[in-house]
């Protein structure tokens, strides 16, 4: 799949995989299909998974004509026929969805990158060893 491809099928599939919640649209409605394609283009493993999943789904018109249950059924068929490709595609979709600031806000997660700020190291409190220290040495002598 390339950036110029029709992403309507992918977008519809994304909405079933990560549906709307609270005031957030589903992953497709958030416009993430383009980002998924872009990221997959940069990694041959990801791209192979995306191509397999999209290739195994019905055509865009047929897929969107299905009701929610029918769309989920089509996705489940792909999942069971090629679990590795489907799983990897799902991992990529999850990673991209959970990069979105709006999603972080909904989860009440700070959403900061781990560095450079980091977090605060709590103090070391030796009293936590009170019980563990009472144990006699028990390593096996040789």
């Amino acid at each position, binding site marked *: 799949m390339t950036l110029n491809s029709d992403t309507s099928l992918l977008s519809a599939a994304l909405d079933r995989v990560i549906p709307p919640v609270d005031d957030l649209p589903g992953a497709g409605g958030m416009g993430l299909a383009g980002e998924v394609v872009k990221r997959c283009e940069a990694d041959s493993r990801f791209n192979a998974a995306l191509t397999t999943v999209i290739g195994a789904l019905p055509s865009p018109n047929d897929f969107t004509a299905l009701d929610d249950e029918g769309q989920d059924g089509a996705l489940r068929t792909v999942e069971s026929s090629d679990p590795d490709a489907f799983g990897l595609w799902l991992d990529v979709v*999850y990673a991209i969805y959970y990069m979105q600031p709006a999603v972080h806000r909904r989860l009440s997660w700070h959403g900061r990158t781990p560095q450079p700020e980091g*977090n605060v190291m709590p103090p070391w409190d030796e009293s936590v060893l009170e019980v563990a220290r009472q144990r006699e040495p028990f390593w096996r002598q040789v």
Partner: protein
Amino acid sequence: MTQPIHNPDRTADVLIIGAGASGAAVAASLSEAGFDVVCIEQGHWQDSFKFPTTEPDWELRSMSSWSINPNKRKLPEDYPINVENSAVDPVMFNGVGGSTIMWVAHTPRLHPSDFRVKSLDGVAEDWPISYEDLEPWYDLNDQVMGCAGIAGDPANPPRSERPMPPVPIGKDGEMIAGAFDRLGWHWWPSDNYVNSTRYGEGRDACNFCGHNMMGCYQRAKASTDLTYWPRAIAQGAELVTGARVREITTGADGRATGVNYLDSEGNNRHRAARAVVMAANGVGTPRLLLLSDSDKHPNGLANSSGLVGKNLMFHVYAGVSGVFPDHEEPWVGPVANIILSQEFYETDPDRDFVRGYSYQMARGQGPGATARSGPKRVSWGQNHHAELGRRFGNTLNLGVIGDDLPEEHNTVTLDDRLKDSSGLPAPKITYRVSENSRALLDHALVQGQAVMEEAGASEVMINQLSREAGWHLMGTARMGDDPERSVVNGNGQSHDIDNLFIVDGSVFVTGGAVNPTPTIQAIALRTADYITNERKDLKA
């Protein structure tokens, strides 16, 4: 790092293959002793300010260009590995620092009993060296790498004072530790090569970012590009990067004469040396020995025993995850450098397996990683948000590290078809989990569940076996006194070739049930001291 100009046509005293945990230690030790040292490394220097943990797509990059799995990373300096016949995928990093760029830096030691499993339990083989033989080099390595911890652990022999106080275990560590206490089971704050205070040149204290497997921006985690290499280079060692060794060369007398390698432009080159030290890890080293076959050595170099590439051990890994609804921020603090329990480390005749295991506590992760990892991926569809909501920000883990006894059918061989970016045959792994290992893991999962429940978990999930967990690469060129049953002697010297040494995890006879790197580095430092003291003939 800037280096003086070295003459590439000279004959070095010692040529080291691989600039990772063990190669760096040998380079620093031998250059300090005045040897002319050159190291050939296929990867490159890393810039800690460019690690992906400062980028918004860090979670995605941990699945591709920053994956721990070379088959996913696919960088030119990586080599592919055929894992079709393996229950576990080997993981590693190829570059200056080797796998210590990505390691967690949890640094326990083997137990004295690990060196004597044949005598004590009637399985595998004894090592030709003992815990006491290695102890001085364990201590030295703790100083150079920088160990945070606290002496007094009753599950281990007494240790000298650690150079730094422990990395605080946090509220989550206390919660799990409390469960061990109430069950009457051992736990202790982990020894870590992670700074709890400033330690070492330009290395800050850990800032609890929680993601040191993607490199450490703070330089708080010890990797050998920060610890041993600056010393080695200041002492005159030469480090050639982006250069892939394709074979070790031998002379008419069968002794090692140096290596043939491909430089960063892909040109074939030769480097001459009076001795060769292999530090390419438990997969890279047997691969190179097998690639170095010749009329004189038709089964590969140093392989008269036929054991090169055999007895591969990984440590079997499994895990128990607990959901703690009231816990907050489980991503704060180093990912798995918290506490360990060795209650079930030693053989107990009442159990249906020999040897044992350690528990290593691990923290939760960001939302993307939570969704796709753990014992099982968060489901897609209508239940997705509810399931993620239950797990994200609430999950803590107990990893099980199981002793993985050597078996000759677990191997590294050369693949017939798969090649690396230089056209060299890739390694092929054949590995299955033994009945003993499975029984040991099953026991650990039951006890681990009890710990999580005691700690107050509302839901417990089991991971029967971690596949992408072959981070400990051991046993494929093991040491021993008998040349028919081992590849090198207790000093890491090949039985067949007196100027060829191996210092990485390949030389392990058994794996114990702890992360191996302090032991690998202690062995490397000990071999370096052997060369310094007993092999002065190798110095020009």
